[in-house]
């Protein structure tokens, strides 16, 4: 019940706000904040209740109820060491966002808070679903509140941006729906993810149907152009959630569906996917470098950072996959914090243009210090969170990667470029002579500090004691890694579509072991 409680508690907040119409704005904010904070506190129970040493369980805290029996659809949820961190990231960022938006929403506060809470339920549902149909419902449902957040509370070109965002995602979703239905019929009319395994006919097409949906969400180069527009137009909180959690839906989908369900197709398609990932790393960084708009700069930096994650996911290396999962969390924290910081100066100056700033360090020293730490985290400075993920991705891909080491060499140039675009931006915003128009900007107030400090705590924590986070995901990552490493034993990549007789038993065996474990887990 714990998991369901976490997922639906925010929805309770939505209902509460809807019913208690006519309350003052402070009450609405109070309810939203309390509910989201409570959700976070309860979700910590997921971490404490999670058995990290349990090697034989696939999913924990599993709940399963029949939903639409005739179609084999069930309400089936559970978590593993991978989704655990994304759930905690979501429950952590939501109260932070509500606190950040405290004074920035002028119209339709109720609707804003309701959208935000509904969005939280949608996101949590995506990370917990073990039923493909349920997954798809959450995946689509999540779009609606996000559509409102950008479309109502966004900037000038919000309508263009929000339609672009929704259509891009929908285009992917349509493909994924076909994929889900195909799996349903091949899987004996069941949407149950835990029983899906083994080999599917046309797995290459199925893989692509899922992958393209996720690649758009990530976004993988060249599917990324919705992101800068969406970020620029979205309200601060929308950008934080978008960068912090929504982009992770794509990478989460890859590790949850694309890799374990179609390991051979994944191996087959790895060359061009990692090529795009590496292009994205360099391209995103170079384009970020020349952006005049702070939000666009951060948006393009996400393209670069997520390129690392995709590279790691397709490397077939345990270390790199683990690094990728950690990097999803890291990116959520650092990029989320960057958007919060940009939002904070936007509220003061009503501009996001880099040229409008300069010398802020003198006027806003606390802001400058926090901005510096977050910038360094994004650059991947050792001792802060970004480094650990990036290092594991690059090391794993280099040592065991299913592709040439040159990919890693090119990807590593991203380390140089990140320093270039981030430090150049930091210099232009924070250093130099203070402009007259900026002379009266106040430093951060205590609410804003309270918004940022929790993120800083995690930025340092993950950097100094990453094992707190790496250990619980160890077994889950290992499972994915062994799955994707199976096709490696095949003599040539070309034979993947026509697997030889000799491999089948091995794969079957694997499947059987896996199934029996899952049954055990469920009976618990």
């Amino acid at each position, binding site marked *: 019940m714990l998991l369901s409680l976490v997922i639906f508690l925010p929805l309770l907040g939505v209902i509460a706000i809807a019913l208690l119409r006519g309350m003052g704005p402070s009450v609405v904010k109070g309810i939203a904040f309390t509910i989201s904070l409570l959700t976070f506190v309860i979700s910590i129970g997921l971490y404490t209740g999670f058995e990290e040493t349990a090697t034989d369980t696939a999913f924990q805290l599993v709940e399963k109820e029949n939903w639409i029996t005739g179609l084999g659809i069930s309400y089936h949820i559970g978590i593993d060491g991978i989704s655990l961190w994304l759930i905690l990231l979501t429950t952590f960022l939501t109260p932070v966002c509500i606190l950040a938006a405290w004074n920035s929403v002028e119209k339709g506060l109720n609707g804003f808070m309701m959208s935000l809470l509904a969005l939280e339920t949608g996101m949590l549902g995506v990370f917990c679903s073990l039923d493909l149909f349920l997954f798809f419902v959450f995946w689509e449902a999540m779009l609606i509140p996000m559509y409102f957040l950008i479309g109502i509370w966004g900037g000038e070109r919000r309508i263009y941006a929000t339609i672009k965002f929704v259509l891009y995602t929908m285009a992917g979703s349509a493909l994924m729906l076909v994929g889900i239905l195909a799996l349903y019929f091949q899987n004996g009319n069941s949407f149950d993810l835990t029983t899906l395994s083994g080999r599917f006919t046309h797995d290459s097409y199925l893989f692509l149907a899922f992958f393209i949906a996720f690649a758009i969400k990530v976004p993988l180069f060249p599917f990324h152009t919705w992101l800068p527009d969406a970020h620029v137009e979205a309200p601060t909180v929308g950008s934080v959630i978008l960068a912090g959690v929504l982009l992770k839906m794509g990478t989460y989908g890859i590790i949850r569906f694309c890799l374990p369900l179609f390991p051979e197709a994944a191996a087959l398609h790895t060359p061009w996917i990692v090529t795009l990932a590496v292009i994205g790393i360099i391209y995103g960084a170079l384009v970020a470098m020349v952006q005049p708009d702070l939000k666009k700069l951060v948006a393009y930096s996400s393209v670069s950072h997520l390129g690392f994650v995709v590279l790691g996911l397709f490397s077939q290396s345990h270390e790199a996959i683990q*690094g990728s999962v950690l990097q999803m969390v890291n990116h959520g924290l650092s990029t989320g914090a960057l958007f919060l910081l940009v939002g904070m100066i936007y509220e003061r100056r009503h501009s996001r243009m880099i040229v409008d700033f300069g010398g802020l360090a003198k006027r806003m020293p606390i802001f400058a210090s926090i901005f510096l730490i977050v910038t360094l985290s994004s650059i991947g400075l050792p001792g802060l969170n970004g480094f650990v993920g990036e290092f594991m991705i690059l090391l794993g891909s280099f040592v065991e990667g299913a592709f040439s080491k040159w990919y890693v060499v090119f990807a590593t140039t991203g380390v140089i470029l990140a*320093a270039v675009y981030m430090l150049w931006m930091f*210099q232009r915003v*924070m250093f130099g002579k*203070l402009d007259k128009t900026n002379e009266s900007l106040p430093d951060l107030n205590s609410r804003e500090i309270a918004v940022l400090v929790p993120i800083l705590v995690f930025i340092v924590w993950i950097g100094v004691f990453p094992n707190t986070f790496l250990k619980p995901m160890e077994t889950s*990552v290992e499972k994915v890694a062994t799955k994707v490493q199976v096709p490696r034993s095949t003599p040539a990549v070309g034979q993947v579509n026509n697997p030889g007789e000799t491999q089948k038993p091995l794969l079957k065996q694997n499947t059987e072991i896996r199934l029996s474990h899952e049954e055990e887990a469920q009976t618990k």
Partner: protein
Amino acid sequence: MSKELIIILLISPLVGFLINGLFSKWLKGNEKLSGTIGALAVFISLICSIIAFVTINIDSNATLEGDDGFVYKWIAGGKFSVDIGFHVDALTTVMLLVITGVGFLIHVYSIGYMHGDEGYTRYFAYLNLFVFAMLILVLGNNYLMMFVGWEGVGLCSYLLIGFWYEKQSATDAGKKAFIVNRIGDFGFLLGMFTLFAAFESLDFVTIFDKAETGTSAINVVFGETTKVTLMVATLLLFVGAVGKSAQLPLYVWLPDAMEGPTPVSALIHAATMVTAGVYMIARSAVLYNLAGTGVVVAWIGVLTALFAAIIALKQNDIKRILAYSTVSQLGYMFVGVGIGAYASGIFHLVTHAFFKGLMFLTAGSVMHAMANELDIRKMGGLRKKLPITHATFLVGALAIAGAPLLSGFWSKDEILHSAWGSSKIIYIIGLATAFLTAFYMFRLIFVTFYGKSRVEPEVDSHVHESPAVMWLPLVILAVPAALIGLLLGVGGHDSWFHHFTEDVFPKADKAPGSVLLFMAISSIVGIAGIAFAWTRYKDRAPAAEPTNALQKKDFSWLVANKFYVDEIYNTFIVQPIKNASHFLLWKLFDVGIIDGIVNGVAALIRVIGGLFRRLQTGVVQAYILSMVIGIVLFLAYYLFFVN
């Protein structure tokens, strides 16, 4: 040696950083307290370093290695695992003494030097953080921890170079330093990946043990043999060293780094951080010996030494002369570690830390007296007004020029002597550089301290010797700068220093030839350089910059403009990348092509939709008309074709 000692040693500057960093609001008005906290934090580390040093001195087996140094597991996932742990041996303690010894004196000096600065507290916070990072760099028991310190000192360097952040040139220089260092780090990272692929560990002890066991313990990563793998790994690591230690072609950040406060230049850009690359290669001595890539290191080193010395000949900025001199001297250190004379390379690192740190601090003292004037052409005759500064600077300059019995004489001679046994060309270039070194350094001395005063009158009246808190560290530093060579270096390969570090480094071949002969040659060359400088600059400032086109074409003009290396990098690398990113990638590809396609698809759908929309006119007559046409066609089809 106890782990607790090392933890105190390491944590103390971190605590200092946190106090000055977090409570800057309250400490701001209280310079004394802020500076004292900063200096005290490093003083505690110094005491611990001395204890560690003495411990190993008494018992060479009292090192802290392997499991004894384990603190906690840092990153673990799959087969990868790396600890936070310490490795303290003779080499480490030497580095510790340099860092905390010179570091402490520079902290004390800074109390006076930074007096009245708005960012006083921030300065000491950064400086403490730097010491902390530098200590991690030398204390770590694995490459990744070294890298943590490596990046940490890079960060502090960035912050301190751009310390006066309202000045554009300062923040530009800070950014340049960080980015150029990142290019080096790119190599360091790939080097670590290769090492992990080869040894399945990043731990020093594990890697070196496996390397010594033989090729069977090493995985082949590149090429056919483990030797190729090791060559790739060591060369990649060396790329990192080239960045951090400002060697060709990545030296360009160090001269610009002089934008930072002068004590920072002394500590970071002369005594400690820039020597990290030398330390890294000395630490990896086993690997470099096996790979045989030391020759590359030595050549880059000697070429850098010569190149930077040539540029230093024509510079007129007191700090930049010292900066190019540092680049040049670092080149000597790389020659030392490159030819396998690891102990000699590290010995030069130690003597250089003292005499170059001293010279930077005296340069700061000159600037302090001269209202921050840097141009030596506007000085002259300062020895009368700044007697202590002059005397201590002279000690430093004599030491670097290789005057007999002073510290630089011993260490440089050891390197040159070993180089003779390895490559005669390297020896000759090194010797020529020694001549140039003596020349440019005494050009600096004569132009600054001797001859007639060219100080501008309004400045002249204020010229004064620095306060005790500043000159005392100068005097204290002058002692080791003069004598440390005599203490540690007498006897060449049988000297105390070589015995102390013999457990760390592989045994180097004894260089051929008589020690005394080489010493004599070095001395003559050094004295000749000084004498030559005397004849040219004893009472004369460097010529004004030439204005006619003919003169602009000659070699000295090229030298005065530092061979236009910065301009070349800017024109051929920086600007093309920037422009291509802006126009090709962003405007053309992203906005033009990709978004063009996306919006084009949307527009196409709208057009098609628009066509179909025409049918839905809402005019009933039109619907009836189309219906009638349809029926007519339908009937016609039946009547004429079906039958």
